[in-house]
């Protein structure tokens, strides 16, 4: 019996189908290992270099108003929280992860502004003080230390470079001392501070 007769026409079609399916699966596998997604998606889901995936919040806000991040300010604060927050609970809005963000819509011709934050450290085993590194539109505003009690209110000047021509001010709060609430908790569930109030006020300069 010759080699060619060992396989029927159906067999040859089946081999062709195997080759096609394997080729499709290899292409998909290659794409899975080399994802095309970039930017914030990649940083959060794939590379896991951030715990904060900013959502497209409008930042709707009136300059000069100090917004409560307790339950009484839930409506006003809603559009100011792109990521890294949970709540509000009765004692404020809790940070989750290693970074939290705030967004404030501003007029491009806004006057020099100060960022006002009222915050308190979480009451969990770990450092007594939580360090918070604050930046606005990528410009560093400084580092503050926040105790568990009492709440601390700070006012940080925003550099003119961070405001120039901008229609939003994106505030990043980084928490180098954030703690895991329970053993094995993921980095996206780390805790650092509770935000009680925040706002932008005309600078006292």
């Amino acid at each position: 019996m010759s080699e060619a007769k060992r396989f029927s026409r159906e067999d040859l079609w089946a081999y062709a189908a195997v080759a096609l399916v394997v080729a499709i699966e290899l292409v998909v596998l290659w794409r899975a290992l080399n994802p095309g997604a970039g930017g914030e998606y990649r940083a959060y889901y794939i590379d896991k270099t951030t715990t904060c995936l900013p959502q497209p919040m409008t930042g709707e806000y009136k300059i000069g108003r100090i917004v409560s991040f307790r339950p009484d300010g839930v409506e006003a604060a809603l559009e100011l929280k792109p990521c890294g927050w949970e709540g509000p609970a009765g004692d404020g809005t809790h940070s989750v992860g290693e970074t939290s963000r705030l967004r404030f819509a501003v007029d491009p011709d806004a006057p020099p502004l100060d960022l006002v934050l009222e915050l308190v450290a979480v009451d969990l085993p770990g450092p007594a003080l939580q360090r918070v590194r604050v930046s606005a539109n990528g410009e560093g505003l400084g580092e503050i230390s926040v105790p568990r009690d009492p709440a601390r209110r700070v006012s940080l000047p925003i550099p003119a470079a961070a405001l120039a021509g901008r229609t939003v001010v994106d505030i990043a709060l980084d928490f180098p001392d954030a703690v895991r609430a329970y053993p094995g908790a993921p980095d996206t569930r780390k805790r650092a501070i509770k935000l009680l109030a925040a706002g932008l006020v005309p600078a006292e300069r």
Partner: protein
Amino acid sequence: MLVPLAFLVAGLALRFLAFRAALPGVPAADFAQALCRWDCEWYVRIAEEGYDPFPVPARVAGGNWAFFPLFPGLVGLARLILPFPTMVTATLVSLAVSYAAAVAAWPLLAGNRRAYALYAAFLLAGPFSVYFTTFMTEAMFVLLTIGVFLALRQSNYLLAGVLAALLSATRIVGVFIVFAIVIAMFLEHRRRGGTVAGFIPELLKRPFWLLAIVVSPLGAFVYMAYLDWQLGDALAFQHVQRAWGRVVGNPAVYLWHSLTSFPGAGFLPSTPQQQGLAAVFGLVMTGVLAWKRRLPEAVFSLFCIVIPLSAGTISFVRFMAGLAPVCLMAVELLAARSWLFALALLVLLAGGYFGTFGWLTGYLSLV
């Protein structure tokens, strides 16, 4: 076919009674909607609106990409034909699929009438029947799993491969049934006098066996291709777990933590303990399957337990209820004695009421 039909009707009655008792103020017409809890709501949204783009319109990190498309897609198609709200349509489709699963289980139970009655009662009227009759993927997963093992029993590998492909589009663990298919082929090869070393060359000479193997995970690959097109990330179904705080870890450690999470008060096992016990039940039944040399079922069950266990024991009651080989093994054991059968049937039917009551009142072990 009448036995499952009787349990389908009895199950509907039991769940409706539980619904009236748990939610007396809710109109009877909202029965189907009221049973839609937890993951069900995600499936409703997929059936109605499809998959989330990025950024997620709800402005949260948790997109709905973790939920596989076959069953919500089927309900989405049924919505185009049937003039009912989504949950009514989904309930009808689930009932039909669960009924079909119960009927299809008959040949796998090899004429064991008591085991068959128990399994039909378990699916259609038992404590976890709500999983199989609301909008979850368990009913379809059970039907397709049974279909694959039926096809394997008849050595119809290509059909097994096609059903496996559908299974892999239902839940990600469905891809692991490819190992059951390969083992079934290997066992047949050995029964025919083939050697271990001769299996691969034999496989290469059988293009339809090869086709069955490579087709098995195709459903998952098609979904991955869609995610790649939609998001640029074929593994979005896995990556999105970060938004839920799921961390991959040692399955044994997760199981140990669950089993040792003792309740603060009382004797009733805590929620993690109940979920951990469900995993232990699955492992024990998998051991029995292996001991009975039902290796394809045992290997598939092992994957379906260990892989999800690497993310914790959450939802393990549901996962085990939807793992057909494990539950079929259990009903075979319970059917061994007539008194045990009668007791098990009674417990299952009572559980049909209390399980639904617990589901409706937020009993966390059932998540």
